[in-house]
């Protein structure tokens, strides 16, 4: 009993420590601003992060033998927090909260924008805002977290698992809304920590290796990005910000404005060589995160070992951080370098697309297959960027969103398959539809979505990118077109074999042993089917988001890139 008492005290220390830390923080920043009209800081970032820390502190305060009894409470509390975030973002998106015309905002203009002083002395601020690029991503994150929670409702040790998921969601939203380089980088790295623990604690057999590889790979890449941030920071005029001791600021909005003035007025802030250097440094971070060939090797390992919920968020949102970062920083700020590096980007995109699809064909492990198909889809995003067309940009952004819906469903299905059949070997069974009709249906649907079936979300994005490619590169479009077609045919065939073939003589995987095959649980079904419905909705009515995306893209091209594109002709 004495032992339990000790544990309780420790948890209390944590909760007390958090309160003390928060109150000290408030005390140490003397003019704490009022948070009126700030729908981002506390509701979208503070609530999930602080909520999850409190829940985890509470869970560790409870002695081990009583943890089971609080698991339901913690699950519902996490779900509640995730749903609150979802509701707020949905209200934002649908113009109810404030009257916002997402499609009409100009380049470098942000809604729900707020600025607070943070680390004055180096010019870092807490600066958040949302525009046509980040709104879909924020909404996607807010949507995926509750769906992930529901789909993996019965995970082991839920008292840490579900709070970690909402912590992850809070950090990801932090990345998407931050308009300050320092804050952006902090959240960028912060997302690694919950994911590291998700893989480490709930992952497969090789989780130790996979978690470390994941962390080290992406951290190494992002410190190159940090070098870029620092260089960019220092290249500002030292009289930019008077409050900081370096006289400079990390403000993204101001820097993009400077870059824009450079385009409009022709005054040189970043010379061509510097632009190229910065472009390479930033892209190194983003391309590894995306990931593209040849930096993709962390992805299959992380995915295969991660728990279902982890891979859903990893594939759904974390990979999009790379693409989002490309649009937000290098494309918006270094137009000269982007136009110069158009061909390399196109070639990397082609290779990723082709190589991902090719390796995917040879995989028998379901999760590995999905991971390589993600690499392939990320190649499409890169192709959209390389096209330098408004349509291509919009297609790439929509691809980020569509893949954010489809790949969690794929991973959810793979996780359910693993959970019920104890294997990930796709070729090991025949006639799944007979044993687990719901699982089979979901699996079939998710693969169709992934292949870009018309009327599903992925199709819109692929078509947009391919058209843009045709405008820009002409017949080169044949390569991605044919790749997509062939892989589609192959998957349909292999799915059909696994799911429908066999008639009466179905074949069950050996790993099942004597167990009877079951269908998926209700909670899994709710999560997967709601994803499926969304995929259909955004396939039929893509304009819900496509308008704001194309609005953003055409503004971006008009304001930043036009001169450089013209120069090339």
């Amino acid at each position: 009993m004495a032992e339990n008492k000790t544990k309780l005290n420790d948890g209390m220390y944590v909760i007390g420590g958090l309160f003390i830390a928060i109150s000290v923080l408030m005390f140490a920043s003397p003019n704490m601003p009022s948070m009126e009209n700030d729908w981002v800081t506390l509701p979208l970032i503070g609530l999930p992060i602080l909520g999850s820390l409190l829940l985890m502190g509470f869970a560790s305060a409870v002695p081990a033998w009583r943890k089971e009894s609080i698991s339901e409470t913690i699950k519902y509390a996490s779900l509640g927090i995730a749903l609150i975030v979802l509701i707020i973002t949905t209200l934002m998106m649908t113009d109810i909260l404030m009257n916002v015309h997402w499609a009409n905002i100009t380049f470098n203009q942000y809604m729900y924008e707020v600025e607070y002083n943070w680390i004055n002395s180096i010019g870092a601020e807490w600066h958040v805002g949302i525009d046509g690029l980040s709104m879909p991503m924020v909404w996607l994150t807010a949507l995926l977290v509750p769906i992930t929670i529901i789909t993996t409702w019965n995970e082991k040790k839920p008292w840490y698992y579900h709070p970690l998921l909402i912590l992850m969601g809070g950090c990801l939203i932090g990345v998407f809304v931050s308009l300050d380089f320092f804050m952006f980088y902090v959240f960028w790295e912060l997302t690694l920590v919950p994911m590291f623990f998700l893989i480490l604690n709930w992952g497969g057999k090789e989780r130790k290796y996979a978690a470390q590889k994941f962390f080290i790979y992406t951290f190494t890449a992002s410190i190159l990005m940090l070098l870029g941030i620092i260089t960019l920071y220092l290249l500002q005029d030292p009289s930019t910000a008077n409050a900081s001791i370096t006289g400079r600021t990390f403000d993204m909005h101001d820097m993009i404005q400077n870059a824009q003035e450079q385009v409009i007025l022709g005054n040189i802030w970043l010379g061509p060589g510097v632009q190229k250097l910065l472009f390479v440094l930033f892209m190194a971070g983003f391309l590894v995160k995306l990931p593209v060939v040849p930096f993709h090797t962390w992805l299959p390992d992380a995915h295969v070992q991660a728990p279902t919920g982890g891979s859903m968020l990893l594939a759904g949102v974390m990979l999009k951080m790379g693409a989002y970062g490309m649009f937000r920083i290098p494309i918006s700020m270094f137009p000269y370098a982007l136009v110069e590096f158009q061909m390399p980007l196109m070639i990397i995109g082609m290779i990723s697309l082709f190589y991902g699809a090719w390796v995917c064909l040879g995989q028998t492990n379901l999760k590995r297959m999905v991971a390589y198909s993600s690499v392939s889809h990320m190649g499409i995003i890169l192709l959209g960027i390389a096209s330098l067309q408004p349509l291509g940009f919009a297609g790439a952004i929509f691809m980020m969103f569509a893949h954010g819906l489809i790949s969690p469903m794929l991973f959810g299905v793979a996780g359910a398959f693993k959970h019920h059949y104890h294997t990930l070997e796709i070729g090991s069974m025949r006639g799944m539809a007979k044993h687990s009709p719901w699982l089979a249906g979901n699996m079939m649907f998710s693969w169709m979505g992934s292949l870009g079936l018309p009327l599903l979300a992925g199709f819109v994005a692929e078509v947009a990118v391919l058209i843009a490619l045709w405008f820009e590169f002409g017949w080169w479009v044949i390569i991605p077109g044919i790749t997509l077609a062939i892989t589609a045919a192959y998957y349909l065939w292999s799915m059909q074999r696994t799911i429908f073939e066999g008639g009466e003589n179905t074949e069950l995987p050996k790993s099942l042993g004597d167990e009877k095959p079951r269908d998926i649980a209700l909670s899994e079904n709710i999560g997967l089917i709601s994803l499926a419905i969304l995929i259909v909705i955004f396939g039929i009515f893509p304009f819900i988001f496509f308008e704001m995306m194309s609005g953003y893209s055409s503004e971006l091209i008009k304001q930043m890139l036009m001169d450089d594109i013209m120069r090339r002709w």
Partner: protein
Amino acid sequence: MAAYDVLSIDGGLKLLPEIVLLAGILALFFITNLGDAKIRIPLTRLRIPALLGGNRFKWNSDPRIPGIVSVFTLIFAIGMLIQTLGDDCADIMKGFCSETTILTTTGKNPVHLLKLDSFSRLFELMFFLALLLVSAASLNRLQADSNPSNDDLEQLLDNRRQVDFYLLLLISGLGMTVVAMSMNLFVLFIGLELASLPIYVLVAFHKESKAGSEAGVKYFITGAISSAVGLYGMSLLYLWSGSLQLTVLEAAWASMDTPEALPLFGISLLLVGFGFKISSVPFHFVAPDAYSGASSPVAALLATASKTLGFIGLMRILMIVTLPETGETAVWMFAFGTLSVVTMTWGNLAALGSENPKRMLAYSSVAHAGYMMAALVAVAAWKSGSYTETNNNGLMAAELIIGAIIFHLFVLISFKIGAFMVISHLETEDDVTDMSSLHGLAKREPIIATSMFVFMLALAGVPPLAGFMSKFLMVTGIVQVASADVLVNNNVDLIPTILGMHWTFFLAIAIFINSAISLYYYLRIGVLMFFEESSTRLPLPKVSILRFVIFVCAIGTVFFGINSDWLVETVTNAASALFADS
């Protein structure tokens, strides 16, 4: 700028923190020796109490008394430190700073001895904080019976050793403050010796174990040789310039047209002395031995306060004496830059293969020394490039880098001591000789394990923890110095742009590569704690004060990472105070 005689009342009042420390040392002597001994006045039967000696009273026979005295002395010293900052500093909540006061020797030609300014006061604060954490954490750590029977000599001896431990800590602290304040190289050296000699004993404090005495001997021999060599270098400087005042040396160095052999030789021998303190290559091999043989609190002291001493010395020598004139290249720049890269790489590679947590922390502290040395090199680069011609805020860059080093030394107190305290907590159970002690810690002690993981991530430099901010500031400073030329020559292509950077830019890249390497072994600790199974599920013995220190360190690590405004302001004040007299 006021100047006082060091022996006058005004001067003494300025030194109140040190006087408090001295009073604490005396109190440790007396309080623990108070007893009921009586003296008989000759030829009478009157016996008056002599107070010293005899059997101790009940209230002072508690073995924890020395620790408590030491903790309160340090708290009081910090209070006095804040009291004596002076009025020049407007708002201490915005940034720690102090008015500048010079204390001189008595006599006809007063020599400037000690200087009290934002720089030295901040370092005093850091030393007091480190000592406070260490002595608080050791309160319950040294085994001792709380109720020793009076006739038990063993217990009495053990109790006496408690006094020794804290006495040595406080004496060492006194030496550290002298180092922080000194304006004369020899005074600095005396302070350094006053701080080091007790630490030699502290390292060998576990004389009952073979490892303790062995670590003590190794540490002592290397330390004594390097400090003797350093002193010889100092005497050569004296032969060259005729004075050891830092300002005189600086003027003599500046007036030197071509490099002369004598001062160069002297400076390089002097650097040997400080190089040992910061455990740079080629002295890196002592650190792991000393750390693993010493008790964890002492190792924590070695990794923070003792290293800080070395860096104060380096800053005084390199930044004040040998900083070159504008447009010149410092002679030591390239050698020191190479040495820094070797140090950080060697430390990280050795830590990769280390199986003992204390040795791993020791190697990681070698690597951190390398980062800070690289930053020092960049300060010199500020003068050598075309930086000052294009852009006159080069001094700001130098202040930023020095500030970053001080920032790092400051936050090291939170996460390095924290990490050693976790190991100290593990040692309450059993000796920590390999990684298996950490296995499954998360299941036994989730909060301690989480704190340890926070310390590890802070050491690796993961945002938003304090270790990230310091590394970030350092690299910002280096890049600021290095990228100055890029703006001038507006190259069109990528490769010339990179080559157009000053070579210190590659130091920044080296720091980044090393951070990536180091991540592996820091993460490994996390994996061991959260993934491996341990043989037992029982929590560690409950030592509340140790836990409290660990929590304080963890909160500090997070706090200074998230809200570093105050600290950045503080270290900038300190850095400008350092450059103010050059």
